[in-house]
């Protein structure tokens, strides 16, 4: 292209330097070529972002529902057992709505992962190491680490939320009196009361713990409101939390009433 322009320049002016008209023409061509290239780069960039966005979403695995089918309802006796329920159903990248008075996001990191050794260092899949440390208060964190859960909405009773609000404000990057938004490690989290929880417009897995009803919460109202806030529930796990000393038989009865109300909806 450069050779051609020189030849044209010589031809038109008879001199070894191109004419001003010719230079302007070449510059214009060059500018057009750049414009096209830049637009192509920007278009590729937008396509790349779109591909990234859908690519991630397509990797999610969450129980499917046929039209008119109700979501599966499971009962377990400890928060810890929910992990196994998820694992058996092959959950991946799920959004979880956790209705409890605890976050169940206590962090856990196996020491073996960062222990020095002579060369060559041996590494492998660390997910089993995380699973070894599973308990009722860290299972949700571990489920997030192992990839089954990607995002968590924690619904706390009003009185618990009020009590812990100030402590949350120090941790979450977006905090108001109604809800806390932020990340725990790399897990997007929203903490709110049921009244202030926004509607979740994507398929979710819901866990309801008996401990949520330790306060004045009405199980029937909770079921109704939860259904409104989470229109697309794919799996619901009810937890009687037998391993929590303050969960009394009366509280477990409330969980039973929640179950009846949920089924009736």
């Amino acid at each position: 292209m450069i050779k051609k322009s020189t030849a044209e320049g010589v031809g038109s002016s008879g001199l070894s330097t191109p004419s001003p008209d010719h230079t302007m023409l070449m510059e214009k061509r060059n500018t057009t070529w750049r414009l096209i290239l830049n637009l192509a780069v920007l278009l590729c960039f937008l396509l790349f972002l779109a591909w990234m966005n859908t690519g991630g979403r397509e990797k999610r695995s969450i129980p499917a529902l046929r039209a008119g089918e109700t979501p599966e309802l499971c009962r377990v006796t400890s928060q810890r057992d929910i992990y196994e329920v998820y694992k058996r159903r092959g959950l991946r990248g799920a959004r979880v709505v956790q209705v409890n008075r605890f976050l169940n996001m206590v962090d856990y990191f196996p020491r073996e992962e960062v222990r020095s050794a002579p060369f060559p260092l041996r590494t492998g899949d660390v997910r089993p190491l995380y699973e070894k440390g599973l308990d009722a208060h860290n299972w949700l964190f571990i489920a997030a680490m192992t990839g089954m859960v990607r995002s968590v909405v924690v619904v706390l009773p009003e009185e618990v939320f009020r009590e812990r609000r100030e402590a949350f404000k120090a941790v979450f990057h977006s905090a108001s009196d109604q809800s806390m938004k932020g990340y725990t490690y790399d897990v997007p989290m929203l903490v709110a009361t049921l009244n202030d929880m926004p509607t979740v417009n994507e398929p979710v897995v819901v866990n309801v713990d008996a401990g949520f009803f330790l306060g004045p919460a009405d199980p029937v109202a909770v079921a109704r409101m939860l259904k409104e806030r989470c229109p697309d529930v794919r799996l619901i796990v009810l937890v009687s939390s037998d391993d929590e000393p303050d969960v009394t038989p009366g509280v477990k009865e409330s969980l039973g009433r929640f179950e009846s109300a949920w089924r009736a909806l």
Partner: protein
Amino acid sequence: MLRKAAANHHVVLWGFCILSFLLRCYDLSAQPATDDDAGMASSATNYLLSGMFGQIMQYHPPLRNLLVYLSGKIFGAYSAWGLKGPAVLTGSLTVPVVGYLAYSLFGNKRIAYLSAFFLCVDPLHINASRQVIQEASTTFFISLGILASVHGIRKDRIVWLYLSGAFFGLAAASKWHGLFPWAVSAGAYLAYPYFKPLAEGGRYPLARILTFTAAYVAIPIAVYTAAYIPWLDRGHSLAEFLGLQLSLVKYQYLHKGTEYNEFMVPKRAYQWFLWPVPWFDFAFVQGRASVGIAMGNFLVWGLTLPSLYYCIRTWFREKRFELGYVIALFLAAYLPMVLTTRGIWVLLATPTILLAFILSAYALSGLIDAGRISRRLLASYVVVVVMLSAVMYPMSIFKALDYPWTKALAELYTPHRGEVK
């Protein structure tokens, strides 16, 4: 023949590269892996396996995981080379790149040689280039990004500008230090026609803005985001990715080191060029303790602030774009570190020192040209710098406990200081 070789800057700069490589890989297998190194090996494997960030420095972007994983595959295992290969390689290659950068900026071999030499023998850079941490690769990609920017901005060459964007994307995907030179270079590209009104492409501001958007916005963001693909594959959306970046801003701002690093190790960036500041790493493998001390050669580091003063004064006199660009790059890399309230340890100086060294080399060269200092004095200074770096070398390669003069420094900062023996 030596004189002929010295006149060819390619020969000299690649000679520095070989020397850098030797200094950075000498006895590499004998340097034990720290707990952090082990954690980073595991992070690399698991990031590729399941998108998990791992425990060590999970708040930094994940390009390190990709580089370490690739290196592990190339060397067949996480041997010393498999693990630290990317750091050794990028650390060694940064030296000639910095030389080429200085040469491209000022067209002066003395400045190029001095810049490359300062980095080649800097004990802190040697230390950083022998660990898995991302300091060496960040600095490497930053220097490549600036070099490509210089070529791209001067001639408005689109391929160089795109390359620059890609390198800044890689730098930022290694560590956020890459954001500062990226921003300055993007600004420099937009500002260049105002400094040089006859610059190529300067007559088409809209075309320039479009090139700017493609080269300094789209390409670096695409490269940066691509490093997160294994994480996005966990089911995350781009909105969640953006949210993560915002949460990391807060995390970085509030980050606290271990109790030892917070209370016993100097942690303010203003100290870097005023007096010698150390950083410590410990390893305890098979019953043997090793201590690595990262500390700059203060004979070089101490020149930074006077050189900055000299360069700023010169810039006000000459208004030379290239000098202003380096000053802006240095200030943009250094001032945020100085002004932040969180702890900033000296190992974080790695991406800043390459710019400090170019400024110092420029000042020294200017003083020689002005006849203020003699060539003989410069030669003597270079010899003393080499001697001090040689004395400090055992600290950089985790042999601080093996030599009495480095052991004394290690004991001064021992975590067990004050304990009853």
